[in-house]
């Protein structure tokens, strides 16, 4: 079995299985936790509307912090959008997603994706360096932050190297490493902080709805 066969076969199967187990495990464990009984009568506005408003409001920087987090905010949005555009619209990715979802969509030209991926990677690396040198960030960063950064960057690095044919006589090995890097991300997804890709929006909704019941605008 070649490395590519391993990456496309057993490794993908187990990565997918572990990711699903991990996601459902964490979601079920969180949802089923015991909660205090709320003995007060509900106050304030409609909880659904408040939840949706919290999702929207917490997706933009609060006015008080606007200036101090502008860099973080803009770069954060930029790399998330670039990463997901690369993942969703690079033409060879579409058949993979179609095999899982049952439907596909048109991809973007490779040149556009490569530019997006390169910009995304540059931002991610800049943010990683910032995390390592910033006096506050470096103190509050832990192993999870660095490993999460690594597994998010790795598919971009291996993808660009593969696309650029930097190792032309080992192209299949580069494809294998690219797939393995994605599988590492899949396995780490439910375990680390990147699990926020599943929980971020529901939690913002939950916060908004819970505070609304108490009559507080979140």
């Amino acid at each position: 079995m070649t490395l590519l066969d391993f990456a496309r076969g057993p490794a993908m199967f187990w990565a997918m299985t572990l990711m699903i187990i991990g996601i459902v495990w964490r979601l079920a464990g969180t949802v089923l936790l015991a909660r205090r009984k709320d003995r007060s009568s509900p106050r304030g506005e409609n909880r659904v509307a408040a939840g949706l408003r919290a999702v929207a409001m917490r997706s933009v920087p609060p006015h008080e912090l606007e200036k101090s987090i502008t860099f973080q905010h803009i770069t954060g949005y930029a790399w998330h959008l670039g990463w997901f555009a690369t993942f969703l619209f690079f033409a060879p990715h579409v058949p993979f997603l179609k095999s899982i979802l049952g439907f596909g969509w048109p991809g973007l030209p490779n040149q556009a994706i490569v530019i997006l991926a390169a910009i995304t990677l540059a931002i991610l690396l800049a943010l990683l360096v910032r995390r390592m040198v910033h006096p506050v960030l470096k103190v509050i960063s832990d192993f999870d932050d660095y490993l999460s950064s690594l597994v998010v960057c790795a598919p971009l690095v291996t993808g660009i190297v593969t696309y650029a044919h930097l190792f032309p006589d080992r192209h299949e090995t580069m494809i294998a490493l690219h797939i393995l890097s994605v599988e590492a991300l899949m396995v780490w997804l439910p375990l680390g902080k990147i699990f926020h890709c599943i929980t971020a929006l529901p939690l913002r909704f939950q916060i908004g709805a819970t505070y609304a019941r108490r009559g507080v605008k979140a």
Partner: protein
Amino acid sequence: MRDVLVGDYLRSRGVTRRGLLKFCAATASWMALPPTLAQEIAAALEKARRPSVIWLPFQECTGCTESITRADSPTLEGLIFEAISLDYQHTLQAAAGEAAEEARRNAMQENWGKYLLAVDGSIPLGNPGYSTIAGVSNVDLLREAAKGAAAIVAIGTCAAFGGIPGANPNPTGAVAVRDLIKDKPIINVSGCPPIPVVITGVLAQYLTFGKIPDLDALGRPRAFYGQTIHDRCYRRPFYERGQFAETFDDEGARKGWCLFKLGCKGPITYNACATIKWNAGTSFPIEAGHGCIGCAEPNFWDKGGFYDALSVSRWGTGSTLAAAAAAGAAVGVASAYLARRRQTRAKEETPR
């Protein structure tokens, strides 16, 4: 006849010096050698003695023999192939039975240590009786013939990597030449079948320089297997622009767009199909509208569906994902239960 020089033999077959030079220039070009070497190749070929070649066909379909002997016209490559002294090839030779085996034994004895051994087909290890020649198992025959060979040319993917007989579940225990022979230089000329001029090119280089060509990690001549089909494919610009045929009869297919989504394995297949092409340079599978199936690569038969895009991985099925979700839910419920118990205990232990 074996003492006749290749040059004399070719002249006797009506090949002019100009014709030989044209072949040598083409060979130099295919093998990425400087054009100035064409003269040297021609000179060396003319002076070379016809080498003895013993060709052992094992578990094979004769497609490789069909490929190399395919004579759409009497080509120079064909003549070079004829110029070798093919002392044993039981599909092609007139002799049969004991006479054929006697010819092989004599050729081996007379050219011990100097003959080229060509092998097509894989070698079954599961049971010696699965494939025999004159009552001798393939593995015994290969080991015996390999002892006196100067080098071995494994022709076709079966001989090079096990090929279709070695495909899962490999009922005969088929293996490649390189799995059995470790002490001789082996040139793998893979493909199902391999391109005829790749075989003649390898032979010409061996005759000219007296050594085996530069090989890749899988033992294939880099000159022919140094780049992927995708790298040299004329449809590559469509791949770059994101223009793909989605079915074999859609607008994209009619416009000749990239066949990646229809399962083309060109990006991971190293061969010269896109440059040398087939049938006297007429076309190659992708030009005919079908994706590459990766036949020059090991285990090409077991790499998933021919019509699955390369990026489609074997992630399981809906039921395996449902089972994973059920397992995750069970673990989640258990962890929530334990967390609730801890919460309850903490509450009980907290002084009111």
